[in-house]
């Protein structure tokens, strides 16, 4: 079964534990500026929204790469950057409509979410379950359940 990151911004408090977990998993340091998931704070609306790569099937970044440095992890469905092949041309960062693949000046490569090989660190670190890792075919399950629960409320 393929799984996807599923983000429910309503539950996010903005603690940035996900950003620290991501940077630790990938760089061995606690460094939100190296995180592949970012939490955006829309202060005047009181909303915090974590955002990262959604692993498009026909990924713009993958198609745009001139050296085939972005490959598919067949088990997780993640689009994964091969650092050895990446030449740092940044064309993928231009082609991605969501901005979720970014250049890292310190390494000269691009980086994006790779789902940590199927065990995403951000999910484990999130204290409020705002980020979960669920069946790709059923990311709407919780929301369906909520509405289903209201279907015959009136008859109770």
């Amino acid at each position, binding site marked *: 079964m393929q799984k996807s990151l599923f983000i429910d911004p309503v539950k996010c*408090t903005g*603690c*940035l534990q996900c950003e620290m977990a991501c940077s630790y998993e990938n760089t061995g*340091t606690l*460094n939100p500026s190296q995180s592949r998931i970012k939490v955006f704070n829309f202060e005047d609306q009181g909303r915090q929204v974590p955002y990262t790569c959604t692993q498009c099937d026909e990924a713009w970044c993958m198609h745009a790469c001139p050296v085939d440095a972005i490959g598919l992890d067949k088990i997780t469905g993640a689009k994964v950057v091969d650092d050895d092949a990446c030449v740092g041309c940044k064309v993928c960062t231009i082609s991605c409509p969501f901005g979720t693949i970014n250049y890292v000046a310190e390494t000269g490569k691009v980086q994006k979410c790779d789902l940590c090989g199927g065990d995403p660190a951000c999910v484990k670190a999130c204290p409020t379950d705002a980020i979960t890792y669920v069946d790709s075919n059923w990311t709407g399950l919780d929301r369906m359940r909520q509405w289903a629960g209201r279907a015959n409320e009136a008859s109770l």
Partner: protein
Amino acid sequence: MAWTRKVLRVNLTDGTCTPEDLNMDWAMDYLGSRGLATKYFVEEVDATVDPLAPENKMIMATGPLTGTVASTGGRYTVITKGPLTGAIACSNSGGYFGAEMKFAGWDMIIFEGKSEKPVYLMVENETAQLRDASHLWGTSTWHTEEQIKKENQDPLIRVSSIGKAGESGVLYACIVNDLHRAAGRSGVGTVMGSKNLKAVALRGTRGLSGIHDFPAFMKVTEEKKQILAENAVTGEGLPSFGTQVLMNVINEMGALPTRNHRDVQFEKANDISAEAMAKPRESDGKAQLITNAACFGCTIGCGRISKIDKEHFTVVNKPEYWGASGGLEYEAAWALGAANGVGDLEVLQYANLICNEQGMDPISFGATIGAVMELYEIGVLDDETIGLAAPFGSAEALAELVDMTANGVGFGKEIGLGSKRLCEKYQRPELSMSVKGQEFPAYDSRAIQGMGLTYATSNRGACHLRSYTVSSEVLGIPEKTDPLTTEGKPGLVMAFQDATAAFDASGLCIFTSFAWTLADIQPQIDAACEGDWSLEKLSEVGERIWNMEKVFNLEAGLTKDDDKLPERLTTEPAKEGPAKGLVSGVPEMLPEYYELRGWDTDGKPKAETLGRLGL
């Protein structure tokens, strides 16, 4: 090591920024943040300094756990000599600013001297630069933060700044970071303003790599987060209701100081409580509270994000205040509300917004209004002097006076000096509800006896965050004690004071102590920091910090007379509630407290006490 081992020294007179190595010998004895920065401060500054003179210094400091995955590891402390109290000032804040300082590679920033013109400090990793802030002077903390991000084209910058209150000499001005978190008390923002330092802007991309034992640290911090998640206060009460969960509880206990401490219960407490914040308003059908929010690394999330009622008289013509913003927290809701007899939740939110926007401590401001309203009711102040009618309970007066004080207009200038100076001026000094010139927070000393001693002995003036015995006396953490008796309280207060100092020095939030004891932070510190950090050592660090602060205050000229509550609390019994008939027992508790501390009968640490602590 969890320290970056680097200190940035900023001389505002010369306009220089100089990196230094952290004194690791001191770090081993004082840990970080409140402890280590105070050590630097007392070594470098003459205790008799005028707080607003260039010779006073101001230190912004992180702890070793700031910027780590340890839950609540985002705190920083501002240390200086406080203009409100003439004592050591030590104000702690959350948000994201503290962690950013670590990520930029600095444990602390020491500010000395005074700039000729308004400046702000821009730190980008190892690069630090003082920049002109003339165009920011006279503007709010919100505008300053937005403008600095805009002109640097970098929305990821973190900013701490002062608003108009800190520029105009309000003696309880605070330093606001990340829009609505604040190093709130004792006038640290006033000191910043006196140095012509408008803001500190940080951008750190280096991260933290030097955790002493990384795998052990990741494991133990995870275990400790579970304790917070499973605890009724940190896992349920605080995230759901925020600190405001206390309003009705404390009122029931007859411990909610009302109308300048004349009463101990407020008939409209429920109208300004957490429950009221979550209830749809009659006017627009929406609740004031929108959601909760966390500071950096915090898995509790006690912060409140609210929206004011657009139709309310305070903001009906001010759309700039209609968006979401921080508050209300319990202490602010009490000080702006019960302390003045004001039961209008929306006006409290408005006053709180102005305090955040212009950088002003809502506790001292609100409690000073309590004194103003009492002086008005007894005829000492009149409409002409104040510029308006200010009876207890007046929402209009509160709204007007918060604007006047934040902007330094008319009678607002006198309110900005705090209740002690104001009451002295009008020859009723006994009506200032303060210790060492700093106003009380939200717990009555007659109904929670330990808090009376907490206030009297707090090194930074009346404060609940030096030893929150409410935990024990109200919530039963770590064990229940009777709030109405004085027995055992000197020991309880001392234990809380020392433990709190150690929590503060670590860089963690004291709110974790609802679920954690020192034994829970000890393994986190031990895994993060080099050296042997045993529980005994950590307790001793706490006691050392407390005594160091005390010695500074004595050298600054404070005496036993400053460890005293206003007469009202020791002579006027509580009129109602469970504590009816009781006064505060501070006079009887104080000698025992001094003795337990190893201090003489004048409250001076004995030579052997100082020797034992290496002071």
